[in-house]
Structures are given as C-alpha cells and as structure tokens.
C-alpha cells in the first residue's frame, strides 16, 4: 500500500458514493438500537426500493444525542431527524428531493455548536464495518505518511509537541510515555490499548470502538512504529460484544488491505493486533492488572516501579494507552502537532469526549475542546436538568472522581482544574444530579462499587473500603454519630495514602468531595435523621456485603 493507492481507494469510494442521489445515515449505536434503529433502517431500505429512488442507506456509529434516538441524517443536505419511528420511513424517502419532514427535524444547534469533533469526526459518517469508508475520510493516511516519510523519533516528537495527555483519566503526557518506551532496551516490545471501560457511567470508548474501530487500530500502529513494537493487544470488556465484533472485523479488513501484518507499505515495519477479552473486573483498568489479565492470570496490580514502559507484558517494555488516546494520534500526525496544540487550555490540549448522562435533558456523547466551562456543557450542550428541578452536582471520573457543586459550574474543564476541585477528569463519564439525588447515597454507591471491585491484594483497599461502606450505610440509615463521620474522614485518608493501586488510592474521592461540598447533607442524615432528597429510607437501608 502506497499513499497513491490509498488515495485511489478514497477517490473510488467517493465516486461510488457520489453515484447515489442521497445518502441516509442511520445511527445503530446501542442507545439508538435500543430505540429500534435497526428496524428503521430496514424500513428505509424497503421504502427506497419501493420508490426506486437512488439512495444509499448506511449504518453508522454514534451521532451523539442519544436521548433523541433513533437518529437519522440525510446527506448531502445534512438534514438531521430525531426520534424516527419505523412508520415514518416511507415519509422520509418520499421527502427526498423536496422539503424535509418537518415534524421529525430536530433543532440541536445549541447542542452541536460548541462541540469540536476530532475523535468523533467519523462517528455517524462511516460504516464502521467498512475499511474503505474510513479510508475515504483520510483514514490510514497518517500511518502511510509516517511509515514512508517519517522516522519513529519524529512521530514521538509530534505527539510530544501536540501536548496530548492520557485520556484514560490520569492525564500522563502521552509523548513522554512513548519516549520512555521507545528508549527502553529490548528487541521485543508491546503496544496495548486499554478498552476496559469499567467506570459505570462512561461509554465513550465503547462508542469509539464501535463507531470508528480503524481509528484505534491506526493509532496503535503509529504507536508501535514510534516505540518499535510489532505486536499489539486491544483489551476490551466482554460486556461490549459489538465492540469486540467490530474490532475483529476491522483487524481482518486492515490485514486484507495490507495495513496490518508484515512489511506494511513495503517497509520493514511489521505490526499485528489481537483482541483480548476482559472478564468483568474493574481493577483490570489499572495497567499492571490489565497486563496480568492478558497473561491469563487474575487481574491483580503489582507495585510500580518497574513501570510497564520498562517491564510490562511478559516482562517486555510495554506501551499502554487508552482507546481515546490512540484515537487522537492519527489526526495529530495528519494535521501536525501545532493544529492539536492550538486547541484546548493552557495545560490540557485538544478535545475530550464526554458521556453525558443522569438528570439532564440531552444525554449522549459529546466532544468539546478542553477548557470549556462545565456550565456550557450542562446548560447549553446538555440542555440543563429536567423542568422543575434544580441542578445539584455533576460527577466526573466515576468511582475515582468526585462531585462538583453548582457554585463551581464556571470551572473550565481541564485535568488540573478538576483535580484541584477534588475530582478528576477520569475517562469522561459526566453524570448530572439534581435535587432528587442524595449525595451521601451517591458516595455510598461508589464506595460499594470499589468494595466489590477491590481485588483484595492490599489491606487498605480490601478492608478499608468495606469499613467505609459500613460507616456510610450507618449514615444513610440515620444511625451514625458525629464520631462516625470523623472516623470516616480518617479512614479515607488512610486508604488514600496506603493503597497499592489507583483503585484504592482514589476510592475515597467520592466521599471526600461530597463531604467537602455537601457536608450539610451528611449532617442532616446524622443529626436530623433526615434525607432531604428522599432517597435514603431512614431505618431501612440495608448493608449488603458481597
């Protein structure tokens, strides 16, 4: 495969698509699928055939506004329809060439206007099972360019200069990690993609893997070229069967096109990828635990150092990055580091995908430049909390993160700002809560999660989270005293300071952040034996120990 050949494929696909008068894109991502988008697609195809109109009907990945599904977009006009029932399929086909179907059109300008799509640029535009669709939108161009025109060190430098930071949550500079692995001594190195999206309330990685799988593969191939690896693994949750299937198809197609395998683009570079299934353990999102799991062992973390960059999978230097991190690589190489560096805030560059859910009008997948305020995300893009309710807090970072209250909504979203506010960026789950949510109950929910997900290797996490859970249950139940609260704070500090891995070290965050901003709710439960949100049934909250 050469650049010319790649461009020829792109031109061919473009020409073939251009032969259709209309292209109808139907979102078949999980949320739209659960609204019945598959039958909408079939009905559209049947209607198109009946009328004899020259229409291409394409199934795509997530278009974003999941609460308005099933989403359908008619190109070239770009008419966006929402909540499309199967019965309207004929009407849509009929309207082609004349005015759009008014009652299905949606006004989501506010929702889309402040978004910038880099990672999601193809999501909703390509058929994820067709490699040529990806190539048509400049796919694999970065890889071919890098292999034929760049040195590995150039790729590392571009990524470093772009200022990309790890999108899995920690925010470690990606370029620095790549440079460490590229300098590590060893003839065999591995590249791993962490697709073990275990945070409850996060589904960005799933949507990327399902909607644009080749983007992840291309990012991994570029990483492998940069650090000198020839084998890659994508570790995906078994709970995401569609993502597994799409990735498997994508790998097969990429091999067929000669974009994975031996001597890619007639260069000495050889790289192949295998999918590895997770098996339902949150701790496997931690890199050393993930490596243990790929090795076929129990997913328990190891003390670091040595870091995986030096001694990882089968004790070889290993590069581990998150799905979204890899998804950013191809555009960086294609458009140059400066283009990426110009987006975002001072120390957090680029864009970030967030999964917006909870008590908010427009739930779904959004991508925004870093530095955007929480208010803009929640009020403008998300459309605010449901009518008649007041916003209380937004939870970021899942079980490792925290809750940010209403008075801090003007906070710009960046790694450092969120950390300073007592939460973390996390992988990108953003769950909005209103006056119907009890913050103590939320803290208890997350601590229960960490308790059951603790691997049990180190005592602070294994026993600490269990004791935290018991204390929080007591508080929810109206049985606790102020001493219990002090004990809880004490315990949080201990667990945070002494746990072995990220799971334990961050498990107290939901408690500490809610205590910081919503201490009155804790006091209300303890002193007045009352839950204002009406969530905790005082006297009936049961302790469930797994």
């Amino acid at each position, binding site marked *: 495969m050469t650049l010319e050949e790649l461009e020829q494929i792109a031109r061919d696909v473009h020409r073939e698509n251009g032969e259709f008068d209309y292209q109808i894109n139907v979102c078949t991502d999980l949320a739209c699928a659960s609204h019945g988008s598959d039958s909408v697609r079939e009905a559209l195809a049947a209607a198109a055939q009946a009328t004899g109109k020259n229409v291409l009907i394409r199934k795509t990945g997530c278009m974003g506004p999941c609460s308005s599904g099933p989403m359908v977009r008619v190109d070239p006009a770009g008419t966006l329809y929402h909540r499309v029932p199967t019965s309207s399929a004929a009407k849509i086909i009929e309207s082609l060439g004349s005015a759009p179907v008014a009652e299905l059109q949606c006004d989501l300008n506010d929702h889309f206007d402040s978004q910038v799509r880099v990672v999601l640029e193809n999501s909703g535009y390509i058929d994820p099972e067709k490699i040529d669709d990806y190539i048509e939108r400049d796919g694999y161009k970065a890889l071919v360019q890098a292999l034929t025109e760049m040195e590995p060190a150039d790729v590392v430098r571009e990524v470093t200069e772009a200022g990309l930071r790890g999108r899995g949550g920690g925010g470690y500079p990606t370029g620095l990690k790549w440079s460490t692995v590229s300098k590590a001594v060893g003839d065999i190195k591995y590249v791993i993609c962490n697709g073990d999206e275990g945070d409850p309330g996060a589904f960005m990685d799933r949507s990327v893997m399902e909607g644009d799988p080749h983007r992840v593969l291309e990012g991994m191939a570029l990483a492998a070229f940069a650090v000198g690896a020839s084998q890659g693994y994508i570790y995906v949750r078994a*709970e995401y069967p569609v993502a597994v299937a799409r990735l498997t198809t994508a790998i097969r197609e990429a091999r067929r096109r000669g974009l994975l395998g031996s001597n890619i683009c007639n260069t000495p570079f050889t790289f192949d990828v295998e999918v590895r*299934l997770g098996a339902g*353990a949150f701790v496997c999102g931690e890199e050393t635990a993930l490596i243990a799991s790929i090795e076929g*062992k129990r997913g328990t973390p190891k003390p670091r150092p040595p870091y995986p960059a030096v001694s990882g999978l089968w004790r070889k230097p290993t590069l581990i990055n998150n799905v979204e991190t890899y998804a950013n690589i191809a555009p960086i190489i294609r458009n140059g580091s400066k283009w990426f560096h110009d987006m975002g805030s001072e120390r957090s560059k680029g864009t970030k995908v967030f999964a917006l859910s909870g008590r908010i009008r427009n739930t779904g997948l959004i991508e925004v430049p870093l530095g955007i305020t929480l208010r803009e995300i929640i009020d403008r893009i998300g459309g605010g909390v449901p009518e008649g309710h007041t916003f209380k807090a937004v939870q970021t970072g899942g079980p490792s993160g925290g809750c940010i209250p209403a008075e801090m909504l003007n906070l710009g979203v960046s790694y450092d700002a969120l950390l300073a506010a007592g939460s973390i960026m996390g992988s990108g789950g953003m769950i909005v809560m209103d006056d119907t949510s009890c913050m103590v109950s939320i803290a208890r929910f997350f601590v229960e999660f960490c308790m059951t997900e603790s691997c049990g290797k180190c005592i602070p996490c294994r026993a600490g989270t269990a004791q935290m859970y018991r204390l929080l249950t007591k508080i929810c139940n109206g049985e606790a005293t102020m001493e219990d609260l002090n004990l809880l704070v004490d315990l949080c500090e201990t667990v945070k300071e002494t746990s072995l891995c990220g799971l334990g070290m961050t498990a107290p965050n939901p408690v500490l952040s809610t205590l910081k901003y919503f201490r009155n709710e804790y006091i209300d439960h303890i002193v007045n034996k009352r839950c204002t949100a009406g969530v905790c049934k005082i006297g009936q909250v049961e302790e469930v120990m797994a």
Partner: protein
Amino acid sequence: MTVYGAAPAPPSDDKRWRIVNGTMRKNGSARHALIETLHTVQSSFGYIDNDAIRFVARSLRVPLSHAYGVVTFYHYFSLKPPGKHTLTICAGTACHIKGTGTLIAEAEKYLCIQQGQTTADGKISLMTARCVGACSRAPVILADGAVSGEVSREELIAQLERWAVE
C-alpha cells in the same frame, strides 16, 4: 520432571468441546490462553463447571488452583448454569440515579429470589450489571441480552410475566 502426555480427553463427547479445543489450539495451548478458553467454555455452555475447569487446566498445563482462582476472580464467569431467560438490570451510576434500585427490588420481589440467583424452576435468572454503556437511556435492562432503555416498573414486570407464562 513431569512428562506431559497427549492432550487430556474432554469431560464428555459433547460436540461443544471441539469449539473449546479450537480456541486452545488457536492459541498454541499456551498458558496465557486460559481466560480466552474460559470465555469459549462460558459462551458455549453458558457456565463453567468443575469438570470444565479441570479439563481446561490440564489441557493448558496450569495448576488447577490457578484456573479456579481465575474463574472466581472475574465476575463475568459463572459457576452455575443460567436460567432459560436472563434479566440483567444495569446498576451503573446513571441507572442508579434514575432509580434502578427500585427496579432491582421489584424484580427480586416478583421472582422471590435475590440478584445473582435463578428461580427454582430454572426459568429466569436475575443479574445486575456494572454498566452496559447505555447510560444515556438509563435505567436500562437487558432481557436475554436485548437492551431496553428508560424502563418503568410496569414494563419490567410485564417482561417477567411474558417469560413466566411461556
């Protein structure tokens, strides 16, 4: 030194063992294929029983304790056969905020079992999931794997009733 003989015979002449053997062969019967193989056992048989663990452990030459440890470590693997139908209620954060707790309680009450259990007649298993990634449609349930969103108590009970009268 242990001398390894031929590959052990499968626990039964069930044809599904061929699929399991296929996975092991594809991975060169390497030890690191343990989790992959267990996935195949679970997807072929619906669960992983002691005979299966013993067979896989011997075939891949990993200690039985190691194999058992792996099976019990990961939530995805089940040691018990599932019911004819499985209702999975998502208990992720977004679902939690939108009242999944009530749904779980209602389902438990209706089926007279706890989450993670199967009804005595073997008809329905009630499971909870940590998050299926359909948060935008919370609360979410999976009826035999098919996702439904914004589920009400009535819809949940109606689904269970449909299965019960089958």
